[in-house]
């Protein structure tokens, strides 16, 4: 009935000298499927198609990909949001090396995340119960801790494309601020020192691609601005 024309980026390093786009027809029977459902239907036709997926409800961050030019999670993106004239073009997240088909090597992305020392640092002795934190202090972590590391933001950021080894990228910086903003963390100075150079944070030009694509509705640009304010007040 309603045939969806899907064009998928294919590349298997064992057999292909260069990537190419492959066309598939998918019969959606008029349903507003999620893009992940469409991919599964394609995989039933051609089992060699590789893509990552896990929770299929937008919380694990496995299936970030580029759908008709925009990064997002396949499992929570309905066709009605992305398909144009019954056409869908699926590509891997831009800017990272492709391992196979829609699977990218996330190594650089994780490395920048790890560089931010994304764990609570507090050198005071912990009490026998929890450390206390007021609801107001805790509210500051909202919009920060929910990141699912899907890399949709960092791979839509030109600054990350040009310098993925030096610019931390929006995802890593959001996490940096998640700990800077935590009333329980006291490694603020060391965290700020890590970000002072011209690349790690300051390569952000504030174009807000990250905000536009974040499937969790988070705002890394705002977090980056907050870190910049902290650096400024620290230095002046």
């Amino acid at each position, binding site marked *: 009935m309603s045939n969806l024309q899907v064009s998928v980026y294919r590349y*298997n*390093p*064992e*057999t292909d000298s260069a990537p190419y786009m492959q066309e598939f027809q998918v019969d959606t029977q008029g349903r507003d499927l999620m893009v992940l459902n469409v991919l599964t239907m394609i*995989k*039933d036709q051609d*089992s*060699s198609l*590789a*893509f*990552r*997926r*896990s*929770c*299929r*409800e*937008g*919380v*694990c*961050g*496995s299936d970030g990909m580029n759908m008709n030019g925009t990064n997002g999670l396949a499992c*929570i993106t*309905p066709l009605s949001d992305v398909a144009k004239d019954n056409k869908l073009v699926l590509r891997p997240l831009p800017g990272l090396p492709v*391992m*196979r*088909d829609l*699977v990218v090597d*996330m190594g650089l992305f*994780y490395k920048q995340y*790890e560089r931010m*020392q*994304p*764990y*609570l640092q*507090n050198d005071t002795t*912990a009490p*026998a*119960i*929890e*450390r*206390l*934190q*007021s*609801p107001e*202090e*805790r509210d500051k*972590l*909202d919009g920060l*801790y*929910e990141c*699912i*590391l899907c890399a949709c933001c960092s791979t839509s950021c030109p600054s990350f494309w040009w310098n993925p080894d030096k610019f931390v990228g929006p995802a890593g910086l959001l996490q940096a601020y998640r*700990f800077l903003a*935590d009333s*329980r*963390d006291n490694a603020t100075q060391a965290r700020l020192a890590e970000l002072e150079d011209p690349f790690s944070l300051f390569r952000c030009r504030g174009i807000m691609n990250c905000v536009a694509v974040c499937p969790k509705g988070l705002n890394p640009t705002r977090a980056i601005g907050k870190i910049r304010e902290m650096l400024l007040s620290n230095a002046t």
Partner: protein
Amino acid sequence: MSTMRNLTFDAIIIGGGGSGLRAALELAKSGKKTAVLSKVFPTRSHTVSAQGGITCAIASADPNDDWRWHMYDTVKGGDYIADQDAAEYLCSEGPKAVFELEHMGLPFSRFDNGRIYQRPFGGQSKDFGKGGQAARTCAAADRTGHALLHTLYQNNLKNNTVFLDEWYAIDLVKNANGDVVGCIALCIETGEIVHVKSKATVLATGGAGRIYASTTNALINTGDGIGMALRAGFPMQDMEMWQFHPTGIYGAGTLVTEGCRGEGGYLINKDGERFMERYAPNAKDLAGRDVVARSMVMEVLEGRGCGENGDHVMLKLDHLGEEVLMKRLPGIVELSKTFAHVDPVKEPIPVTPTCHYMMGGIPTNVHGQAITQDGDGNDRIVNGLFACGEAACVSVHGANRLGGNSLLDLVVFGRAAGIYIDQALSEGIDYLDASASDIERATSRLARWNESSGGESVPELKAELQNTMQNAFGVFRQEDNMQEGVKKLAELRERIGQAHLGDKSDVFNTARVEALELDNLLEVAEATAIAALDRKESRGAHSRYDYPDRDDVNWLKHSLFHPGDKTVTKRDVNFTPKTVDTFEPKVRTY
């Protein structure tokens, strides 16, 4: 295969979810050579989907709260086949484990006094059921699992745990002595097959909800650890006990947390009636999950279901107001909009009982050591094999798990396994090496798939298996249906043994992983089916039309499924906690 590379670790932890990461953290902190082997990047594990919280008597909402009350609820919730020594360990060690998580940075929601926010969940009581509803579930909004998993991953980074991300364990290597001495694993990125040698092998592979057609579980929940243990000949405990969560989103299967009802939401039928008042006059919508799920099915069967086909009910939240929903249940608002096309601020969410959790699994003691039975039916420890989390059956959940107890199970028993292994390694352990034939046995099923040249496809067989389980082993069960299901599974075993892997490439071949997962789904499904057919009573999540009552005379026991001859035996439930009096079985009402 002749040039297979060896990797050697003190401990290998298979699975990067909550329990695996908690165990790994303990070992990494003490400098043991540990690796976490996970088929997905750890934060993609299913723990991330847990919403409502982690139940634990930290005495925040109620300063007089007592872990013994929590233990009572857990034992009662499990319909009295939870091991009481294990439930005692879970509830008494719980606060320590939760405070540790907080110290690691988990962003719990807070009360005005700065302490961790706790909400009411199903089956919770004060004063051993006599003091009314308790609020004992510690929460980070409705993203507790996400917050917990990320916190654990982050702290493993801090402690330099070695990660083998996107590696898939194929089978355990068991030597002539019956000891587990490692596993065979596949590096998904390159296709390389590696022999991982270890003194301790921890199965932290999570659940297997994907044996059912409709489940809240992630696509990766294929029971890989259970499959490996069964193929190695180890028995499984209480596999008939599968929890159906009352509130899976109708059609999509995605979970809507019990926290919704904890915050004041309730279920209604097509007449708008709050029907749980009839089934559980005291606890109402916060009765045990098995009770609520059965009540929902009864409403539908009696013609009071909602929708065109009258096949589901509604979860009403709009009366809580937008502010509460956005503050306490923001993720649920998001999920309902995406998957039910409903804004819970304005309308109720269509829900239906959906497969959610495997109470059964690899029998272990509180240290995570796997248990098997000798010929005379006596317990025996399996050297080198450990299990924790949903893959294990300690058993703290018995026949029905209470909401919020799974996250506690993960951290308490992940931690306990880590502590025990650390100590054992420090004292020094040596096992016999594996022979070439031991290793060959562990690679045989991979070889079978790699050599397949024709046959049925994996997705079709998987769908058939899932439908079989859905139809014959759902919320209500009966003999003839289950007989049929068991027969069907036997037939599927034949066909899966002949099935075809079309793509034989090496680099990131997800078709191969899915084929290997199908083997595991089949093992879990068969253990479930045969154990369910065997238990001739109704207890907890196992409800039979033909045996509607609990039978404590014959069935106050664990079931033990033996893969060799596919028989089921009984194993005693522990009724001797160390520091509290035994909770004697009573009629279970809410």
